[in-house]
């Protein structure tokens, strides 16, 4: 069931918000011991919020489509009175005194918060094999990674523990778990959704966005959480629009860029065939598929990595005296960041502006790009290398290869499932567009979804 279907059911009195919350609790109880998707379950609080939603709906006070809908929050969204760990020892006992802006907005929209979701430690990695709160597992195959860093968000949405989970994306951390867990994931434009109250990793790269089971559910969520926030210095004053695509949305005549070089190199064969199939479907729906040449994406990835290494180490340097509180992979990245000279950081930021201007030319040729979200389906838990296109790659670098650069550009990107691999694991594509064109991306995604691009529900 999607948010839209649940919202319709609530208003038709087919079930209550309390029943929805109880069903969510039952699914958490059934699956979370094996999946480790949650760090904190706030069951009592959720039930009280659900009762309130039922009272309000019965009184005709309708807060909109999220009213009474069970949702989850990656455990770096600050929650008043509820521990917010960022999956780390650093914040193990951090109990915020106020909610993040996104949490405020979701509560104002009537959402029922079921709890705080597990993640890669400090959001600094892609496995969600958390050394402090347990290894998150992929609900399609528990031997495989859910991706990360928003791995608990992906697993919880795929298994219907919640209808929507908030994630954050600094180098692909929404789109990777969406791809591996078979959900939709939206990284909005930088500045579109407030970061206030969200524990930071890379100030100029961090984005907050939803993981959902349908494109329109992602749009409904963006309607609730987007908008200017004076408490976030990176927040945009761009007016928000209605992001939800029409029922009969069309992509006829849209120019969809097909970036064959870079994005279609060194792919798992099942990924390549699924994404090419989705592109063909877009063509059959009337879109114009145009081969497009992009700026140097490998260079952009290097720029983004320099920026992230520097910013993340600046955030956490004050905690590095106690090295034992970090997992080894995160500690290695924080040490690396301490060694990057300030000149490299500044020059990376200069190159970043240059790359963004080079993309202005791309957006004159096409309206968006469609590409794989990840070059492979979910790797097995514990794998450190993966063989793609005849070469061995570090799993972390391979998994972030197709998503990281978009964070440096700040452009919106929508990941959605487009097939299953021969081994039964989800494959995801991403639609990338110009700044503040989320509505366009969501329309394209909805048209593809309506046109049959997708996967069956997770069997768990």
């Amino acid at each position, binding site marked *: 069931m999607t948010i839209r279907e649940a919202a319709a059911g609530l208003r038709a009195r087919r079930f209550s918000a309390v029943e929805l919350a109880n069903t969510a609790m039952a699914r958490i109880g059934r699956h979370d011991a094996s999946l480790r998707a949650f760090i904190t379950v706030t069951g009592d609080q959720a039930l009280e919020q659900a009762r309130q939603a039922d009272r309000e709906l019965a009184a005709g006070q309708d807060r909109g489509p999220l009213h009474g809908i069970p949702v989850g929050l990656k455990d770096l969204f600050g929650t008043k009175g509820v521990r917010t760990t960022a999956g780390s020892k650093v914040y193990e006992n951090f109990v915020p005194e106020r909610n993040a802006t996104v949490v405020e907005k979701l509560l104002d929209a009537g959402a029922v918060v079921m709890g705080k979701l597990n993640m890669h430690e400090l959001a600094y990695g892609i496995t969600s094999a958390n050394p402090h709160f347990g290894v998150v597992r992929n609900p399609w195959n528990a031997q495989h990674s859910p991706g990360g860093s928003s791995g608990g968000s992906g697993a919880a949405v795929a298994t219907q523990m919640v209808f929507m989970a908030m994630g954050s994306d600094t180098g692909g951390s929404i789109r990777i778990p969406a791809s591996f867990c078979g959900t939709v994931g939206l990284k909005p*434009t*930088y*500045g579109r959704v407030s970061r206030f109250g969200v524990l930071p990793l890379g100030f*100029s790269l961090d984005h907050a966005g939803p993981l959902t089971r349908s494109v329109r559910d992602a749009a409904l969520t963006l309607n609730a959480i987007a908008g200017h926030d004076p408490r976030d*210095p*990176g927040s*945009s*004053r*761009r007016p928000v629009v209605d992001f939800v695509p029409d029922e009969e949305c069309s992509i006829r005549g849209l120019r969809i860029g097909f970036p064959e070089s870079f994005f279609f190199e060194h792919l798992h064969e099942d990924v390549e065939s699924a994404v090419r199939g989705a592109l063909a479907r877009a063509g059959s729906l009337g879109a114009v598929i145009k081969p497009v040449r992009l700026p140097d994406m*490998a*260079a952009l*990835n*290097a*720029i983004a*990595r*320099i920026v992230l290494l520097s910013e993340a180490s600046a955030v956490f340097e004050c905690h590095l005296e106690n090295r034992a509180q970090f997992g*080894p992979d995160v500690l*290695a990245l924080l*040490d*690396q960041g*301490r*060694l*990057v000279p300030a000149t*490299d950081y*500044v*020059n*990376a*930021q*200069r*190159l*970043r*502006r*240059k790359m*963004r201007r080079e993309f202005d030319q791309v957006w004159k040729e096409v309206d968006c790009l469609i590409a794989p979200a990840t070059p492979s389906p979910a790797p097995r838990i514990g794998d450190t290398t993966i063989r793609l296109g005849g070469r061995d790659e570090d799993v972390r670098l391979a998994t972030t290869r197709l998503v990281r650069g978009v964070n440096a550009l*700040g452009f919106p990107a929508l990941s959605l499932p487009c097939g299953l691999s021969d081994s039964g694991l989800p494959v995801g594509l991403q639609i990338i567009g110009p*700044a*503040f064109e989320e509505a366009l991306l969501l329309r394209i995604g909805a048209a593809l979804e309506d046109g049959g691009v997708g996967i069956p529900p997770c069997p768990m």
Partner: protein
Amino acid sequence: MDRALQGGRFAIVVLMKNWVAIAQGHGLGLSASELDRIAQPLATLEETFRPLMKQLTPDMEPDFELHLGEAGE
């Protein structure tokens, strides 16, 4: 950058940093395995990043705040 003699001709080469020496110079007090774990990825990253410096001209300013689509962006 430096000039080096390659096959009888001069070529522009980019000097790479010695990350192990830099880490030791920072006094991080890392073990040999920890040093290897941070130096090798930085060296690989630098192979891609360092040559990009050639694209920079003095008028190119950094983009620290990433305000998209506003104030002339």
